[in-house]
């Protein structure tokens, strides 16, 4: 999820005109502070692998060709040959290990601490999944292996499809999309194909003003036009506004439920009725599925198309920004348009890939990528579903909601709520959004400052400045895998930071102090982009 808004890119008072603190003991509750200035990691200037090594060093030892020598011109004529080798690093294997292990330590990660990044579902990543995904039968299986010699993989995909169909309440699944936004693109293209097949050309897609940025971006990529629907005072879809905008030119409504405010829309049945009433489809952004597994199903809510984020609800590790995986599930009327290939099972129980090429009357939108999708992610998600079972998935969602409500309750204690009120709702689902507006006004401390100060306390901050309709938004998703003690310590850290800010707002405004680097000049980075290491 986004943690900045555009205004921060253009002018960030937290950066510009700032006089460095130098870490003079102002990080009271933070991590280890080196006395008298920078920590060892802060003293170490970042050097890329391209700035290390020396000509002639190497890690790779090339095998002997073992074949008769043939002249270079025969193998590859000079006109096609590269004159100079690419200037890749020249380093030994130990240097590579030191370098990457060293810079890895400049990352915060989920295994090290609480990561309540709203909308991203940073739940524990079981190492079992890495072990099973690395089995050669999975990891070293070529994507074009004959189906007869990939029956285990196809059965796994088939079983995962079945589980996702049951969880979503939509019977037909394609695992192909590479990530959530790719699943969204598939969904909008499916909607288009569905309408075109009915001889209709519809141009508009409705999205709530609280929608993830991927929703409107996807609509444009699919050649359609975004129409925003307002949010009502309870944080749900403004049904009157929806009714006014729902007409015969609407292809689809894209909705997240619970929405990005962490609220389940109580009018969902009516919303579905309005959308279906004008012949449009209903698309479910599955980013928040972790709130409702085994409790409520998009298909039962009336959705026609849903995407899953296997890297969120089904705990595929986030990898610093991928890989993800974004399967989709659809209703009967959308099924004929699903991307190909599909995994099918014959009457003899044998699994196969259905390409549909040349099949008369195939209505598929076609391929969205190479091969069958991110199988390595399927293995992990399937292992997770096997571990938890139906009961466990429900328990995961219930506990995610319990944890979010507990943390919300802790943050609604007066000392915090005064500065960080809850603008919508009373209870929440798996996440909640607070407003830092009063904090900014009363303490001259922005949500960005609070987020940066949390870094000194060893926490990853929540998602900030999203959704856009909440002033100075702070979007908190604790997930089910955190203990009550962790939630308590986070709530206490927020309270401490606010108390500290009431005494001296400069502390938060100058934070962080203990991290490998301190606040970075994003404006300069964007103004004069340096996006590669200069080489001599």
């Amino acid at each position, binding site marked *: *999820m986004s943690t900045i808004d555009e205004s921060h890119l253009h002018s960030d008072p937290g950066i510009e005109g*700032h006089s460095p603190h130098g870490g003079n003991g102002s990080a009271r509750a933070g991590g280890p502070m080196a006395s008298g200035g*920078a920590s060892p990691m802060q003293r170490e200037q970042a050097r890329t692998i391209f700035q290390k090594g020396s000509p002639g060093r*190497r890690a790779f030892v090339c095998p002997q060709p073992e074949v008769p020598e043939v002249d270079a011109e025969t193998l590859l*004529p000079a*006109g096609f*040959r*590269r*004159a100079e080798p*690419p200037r890749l690093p020249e380093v030994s*294997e130990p240097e*590579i290990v030191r370098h990457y292990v060293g810079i890895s330590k*400049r990352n*915060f*990660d989920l295994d090290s601490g609480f*990561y309540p990044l709203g909308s991203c579902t940073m739940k524990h990543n*079981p190492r*079992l999944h890495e072990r099973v995904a690395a089995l*050669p039968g*999975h990891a*070293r*299986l*070529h994507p074009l*292996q004959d189906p007869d010699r990939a029956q285990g993989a196809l*059965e796994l995909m088939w079983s995962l499809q079945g*589980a996702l169909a049951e969880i979503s309440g939509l019977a037909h699944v394609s695992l192909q999309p590479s990530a959530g936004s790719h699943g969204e*693109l598939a969904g909008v*293209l499916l909607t288009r194909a569905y309408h075109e097949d009915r001889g209709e050309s519809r141009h508009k897609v409705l999205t709530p003003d609280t929608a993830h940025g991927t929703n409107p*971006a996807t609509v444009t*990529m699919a050649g359609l036009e975004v129409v925003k629907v307002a949010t009502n005072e309870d944080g749900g879809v403004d049904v009157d506004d929806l009714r006014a905008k729902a007409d015969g030119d609407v292809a689809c409504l894209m909705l997240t439920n619970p929405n990005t405010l962490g609220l389940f829309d109580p009018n969902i049945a009516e919303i579905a009725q309005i959308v279906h009433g004008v012949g449009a489809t209903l698309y479910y952004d599955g980013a928040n599925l972790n709130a409702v597994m*085994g409790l*409520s*199903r998009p298909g*039962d809510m009336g959705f026609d198309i849903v995407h899953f984020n296997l890297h969120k609800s089904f705990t595929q*590790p986030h*990898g*610093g*920004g*991928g*890989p993800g995986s974004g399967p989709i599930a659809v209703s009967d009327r959308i099924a004929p348009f699903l991307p190909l290939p599909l995994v099918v099972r014959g009457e003899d129980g044998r699994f196969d890939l259905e390409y549909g090429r040349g099949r008369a009357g195939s209505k598929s939108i076609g391929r*969205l*990528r*190479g*091969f069958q999708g991110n*199988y390595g992610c399927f293995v992990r998600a399937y292992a997770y579903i*096997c*571990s938890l*079972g139906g*009961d466990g998935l429900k328990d995961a969602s219930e506990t995610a*909601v319990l944890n979010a*409500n507990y943390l919300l309750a802790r943050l609604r204690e007066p000392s915090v709520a005064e500065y960080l009120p809850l603008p919508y709702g009373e209870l929440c689902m798996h996440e909640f959004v607070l407003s830092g507006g009063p904090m900014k006004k009363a303490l001259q401390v922005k949500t960005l400052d609070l987020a940066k100060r949390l870094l000194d306390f060893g926490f*990853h901050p929540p998602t900030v400045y999203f959704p856009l309709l909440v002033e100075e938004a702070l979007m908190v998703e604790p997930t089910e895998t955190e203990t*009550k003690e962790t939630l308590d310590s986070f709530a206490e850290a927020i309270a401490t930071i606010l108390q500290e800010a009431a005494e001296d707002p400069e502390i938060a405004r100058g934070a962080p102090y203990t*991290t490998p680097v301190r606040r*970075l000049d*994003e404006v300069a*980075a964007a103004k004069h*982009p340096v*996006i*590669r290491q200069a080489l001599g």
Partner: protein
Amino acid sequence: MSRYTATTPDDLAAMLAAIGVDSLQEIFDRQIPTEVRLGRELDLPDGLGEQDVYEHLRSLAARNTSTEEELSFLGAGMYDHYVPALIDMLMERSEFLTPYTPYQPEISQGGLQVMFEYQTAVCELTGLPVSNASSYEGPSAVAAAGYLAKLHNGRSRFVISAGLHPHSIETLRTNAHGYGMDVVEVPLTTGSAGGITDPDAWAQAIDADTSAAIFAQPNFYGAVEDAAALSAAAKAAGASLPAGGAASGQGAGAPVVVAQVDPIALGVLKAPGECGVDVAVGEGQPLGNRLDFGGPSFGLFAARQEYLRRMPGRIAGETLDVDGRRGFVLTLQTREQHIRREKATSNICTAQALNALAGVVYLTWLGRRGIVELGELLLARTHYARETLAGIDGVEKLHQQPVIREFAVRLDVDVAAVRRRCAGEGVNPGVDLHALTGRESDRGGLLVAITERRTRADIDRLARVLEHAIAAERQAAVLA
């Protein structure tokens, strides 16, 4: 408590009290209308203990024949290159495996620096000045390059070479239909100079409506294309045309020239940037990523400077912190969906950071000399394999063009049947071309990939097994 949760009955009681509800049920009752509640348990098997899940997933893996268990010459987009052990170790480190996109740069310098290094490596490899931090994978990167061209010049048509990977063509078509573009396919040459993009048809197809001209290097059939000539022809055809849309390019009406490149070949092949290519995309799997039955891997996406602000996906940039230390941030975010929403240059959010890490570590492990040595090794062994196979009765080269680590041959018997016979001997001789492309002209075609893991002895064994299989298949045909 399920497997990974920790709420004891005492915790639950304290938490409910703090929330101010009597039961967990009440939290849901007050929020989710009854009519959309699932009034039953999910119909899924019960959860299993860790050892049982392991056994189940192991038994599924055992029903797959991996490249460890047969002598495999499969390629066609993904290749069985050796992945050095240090990559496994680095990818499993918590610090790389478990964080998300580096939204908080102060605590994400490791991941951001990896992106910056990755971008540097891709720029070096492609000879282009700008790279993003990763795309999903090869074919969707081709489609993304098409979208960039559409945003750049607003024209209505893609001209593509039939030498593109069929998955790239299909993916581009799927996407192009969405944003309203036509796709015109230029055939390959036939005859003695066959196997490469037909230069005359290519030049003729490019017109004032051509947004992008897209080819593969080497192409799907393994042939090395004259990339410089294809680029020049596209630019020349465009130069005589009036400028269209928002074009600001080299030659008034020139389309955006896109090449899908094989990164591992770029140790020996002229860089796309030196060949007049505007945007180079490619499948990153050969660079230190495992096969994983097709993914996750990553897509390369590099371009000329003028396309920087239209690039899809994350880009890491260098800057300073308040104390003057060098640091890295996600930059040029005003291109991206979370800022620009419907005006974004792409909808991509989560991409392939961990796979791109494997890519840059692999390139570092190969190093400046290693990538050339590996390229030369592949050239030599592939040449040997091609000549050896072409010497078998019933096998001929599909084309005579230079090849790097993959080549196509035509068998005079049924390929599927031959492949089955070879499988019985523990050899997977390559990809059945017709089965993959559906093209009539590919009937009898076999696409054979040679990586550094395939020794001369392996190639000789392939030749023996293939020869026997063809002979046996001929005999069977005679008997039938």
